[in-house]
């Protein structure tokens, strides 16, 4: 008869139970950690995207020309004299996506390769997965002392508005309005 003996059933059950508990604890911790890390990274990426989009609009808006501006709650069109933007017509557009969300697009009319050819605007998505994307406009101060009201439409031919506003919402909630003045970037 051998001098060694195996584990008893009780010892084996206790060992398996402890191993299971420790494994579950470890998996739970890892899952929590991964989820937290992914959520933090997504939040930071979205913040960076919003920041970049705002800076691009601000940059383009600072070089806008006084004529040719038009807008609605879904888009704005104007020409910017900023060298990086080519002094060509720009259109920032809020477009609905396939999942009920919105995306902010920038369309730039690129110069034609050959004279006489039609110019096709090139689109670039600046922000996606938005819960809301809407422009607003404020008229220049009038003589009356009534508070001004934001409008959702700005027909062409009346110059740029006094204030331009962009309302965005991420999938986590509403973001603060982004407001630009006519007189300063």
């Amino acid at each position, binding site marked *: 008869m051998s*001098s*060694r*003996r195996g*584990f008893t059933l009780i*010892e084996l059950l206790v*060992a398996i139970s402890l191993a299971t508990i*420790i494994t579950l*604890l*470890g998996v739970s*911790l890892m899952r*929590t*950690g991964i989820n*937290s*890390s992914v*959520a*933090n990274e997504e*939040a*930071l990426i979205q*913040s960076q995207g919003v*920041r970049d989009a*705002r800076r691009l609009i601000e940059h383009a808006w600072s070089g806008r020309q006084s004529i040719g501006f038009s807008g609605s709650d879904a888009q704005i069109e104007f020409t910017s004299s900023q060298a990086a933007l080519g002094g060509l017509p720009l259109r920032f557009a809020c477009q609905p996506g396939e999942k009920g969300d919105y995306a902010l697009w920038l369309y730039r009319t690129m110069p034609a390769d050959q004279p006489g050819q039609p110019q096709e605007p090139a689109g670039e998505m600046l922000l996606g997965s938005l819960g809301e994307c809407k422009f607003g406009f*404020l008229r220049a*101060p009038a003589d009356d*002392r009534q*508070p*001004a*009201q*934001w409008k959702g439409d700005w027909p062409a031919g009346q110059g740029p508005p*006094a*204030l331009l*506003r962009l309302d965005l919402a*991420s999938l*986590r*909630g*509403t*973001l*603060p*309005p*982004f*407001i*630009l*003045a*006519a*007189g300063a970037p």
Partner: protein
Amino acid sequence: MNRDKSMASPGMPLCGNAVAGFTVIETLVALTLLAAAAGFLMATLGTSSRLVRDVRENETALWLARSRLVEAAAYPDRSPPQDDRPDQFEGVDYRTRIEYREISPLPEIDIDKVARAFRLIEIRVLVSWGARPSTVQLTAYRKTGPETSVPPAPGK
């Protein structure tokens, strides 16, 4: 969960056969170390999440203050444009206060005794949030005409 004779401590008695398990003390120490490591990991994750949230809240407050300052600077002689939306962004309530104050370009000059070719208005926007309030403050100055009046504390 077992160890052979060669791993046993010198002088440690073995019970009957040549194989001994871990003692209760050893097991408890191992579990305590494991729990401590898990606790540190969770604390690190919590701190990381809190810092990310703080950065987002600070950035949101800064953008809100900037937008309100642009509005107020564009309309220094009246209440800022009406905005019925609550200042709640991504589940956090923000409180905005706008202060207007007429100041003299040269502090030693009494502005009431000089011809007012222009007036200088200091516009200060304060945004606070949280139970233990954090605050962001932005200030701008706007030169206006002599007919402009400073509105009576239209803070929001």
